[in-house]
């Protein structure tokens, strides 16, 4: 039986090798599978997550800003989603 683990990394810029600034981890194995490395951030950048066996599921596309909203700051823009499947 397999269960999914999901890792969100928010990176400093749109490139996968830029630094991690925020993260979230959701564990479908209820703790029976491996966790994240015991450091903060768990991966220095997105490539480090690939090297640890995570698969990239989604990366952010560049976007065109709306007129009048060119300079506003909002959610963390560079959200990369990774998954791995764990046999339990």
């Amino acid at each position, binding site marked *: 039986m397999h269960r999914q683990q999901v890792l*969100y990394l*928010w990176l*400093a*810029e749109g490139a996968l090798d*830029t*630094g*991690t*600034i*925020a*993260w*979230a*981890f959701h564990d479908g194995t209820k703790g029976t599978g491996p966790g994240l490395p015991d450091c*903060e*951030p768990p991966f220095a950048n997105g490539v480090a997550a690939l090297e640890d066996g995570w698969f990239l599921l989604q990366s952010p596309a560049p976007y065109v800003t709306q007129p009048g909203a060119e*300079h*506003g*700051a*909002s*959610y*963390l*823009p560079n959200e990369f989603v990774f998954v791995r499947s764990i046999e339990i």
Partner: protein
Amino acid sequence: MPAKDHRLTTAEMAEFVANGYLRFDALVPDVLNQQALAELRDLYPLKLGNAVKATGLNPDELGITKAKQDVQTPESLTPLSECYPPPSAIGEMLRLPQVHGIIESLAGTDPLFDHDFVHFIGANSPTGQHLHVDAVVDNRDPSFDIQLFYYPSEVKPGAGGTRFIPGSHLRFTRAEGVSRYQKILGEQHYHGSAGTVLIFHHGLWHAGQPNPSPEDRWMYKIRLNPTVPQIRLWNQDDFGALHNDPRDHTFAHARTDSVAQKLRKMQPWQKGHEARYEQMERAKLWRYLSGDQDFDVDYYHTRMERRTRANQEL
């Protein structure tokens, strides 16, 4: 440290604009902390009961202790000067010169009561909140409310005090949209001595945390709405020395002793080019607070505005 008249300095105001909060350790004397804590214990069932009732649930069925009959709380739109009249330790705390001076600097002498709440997390409690912004997503008006967080008792390191994200106050996000961030570089988890006060810009992302410690945790939060323009309400003694003109520009000539320099200082999560937009938002807020519509940090607004103006003059 605030000025002798207890109002904030220009340097502190610039820090507030950059980070979205200010911290004052052990600002409230211990005797008053003890009295306030006793009042908060009485106030808590009333505030919690009212909030539960508003959702259509019955506080009695949920086992919420009945509030004492004589506990009074202000209504929204009450001037701060009329909130918690004597004898009240909460009122006394709010009227302390060192607390009122901070409030006056940011929101004027007599802002309006928006709401308050008593946050209680019992010892060894797993209850916690997702990261959030209070109320709703804001418009682009640079005026702001303040939220005063008062800790009447010590919160030890590891006791799960308020989590907050310095520098997040100008991000214009929906209240629930930031819950996805479990950890952000540079986030803080409050701990400190009894009597400590944090002042937040209303937009700062924050969350109550589980309390794994053997001590109960209490915090009182009050939101205040300004009734006057928030322009140069603080102590002005250091304003002339720190306030810069738009020539303060990292890629030309940058001062190291100016408001702009304080606004350039980013948090660990504010990296890369994204930080430039943060800087622009901070500059806009300082324009409002200082009343100087030409103020800038690193020329981002100035070059566009001058271009536009030049074409309008054709």
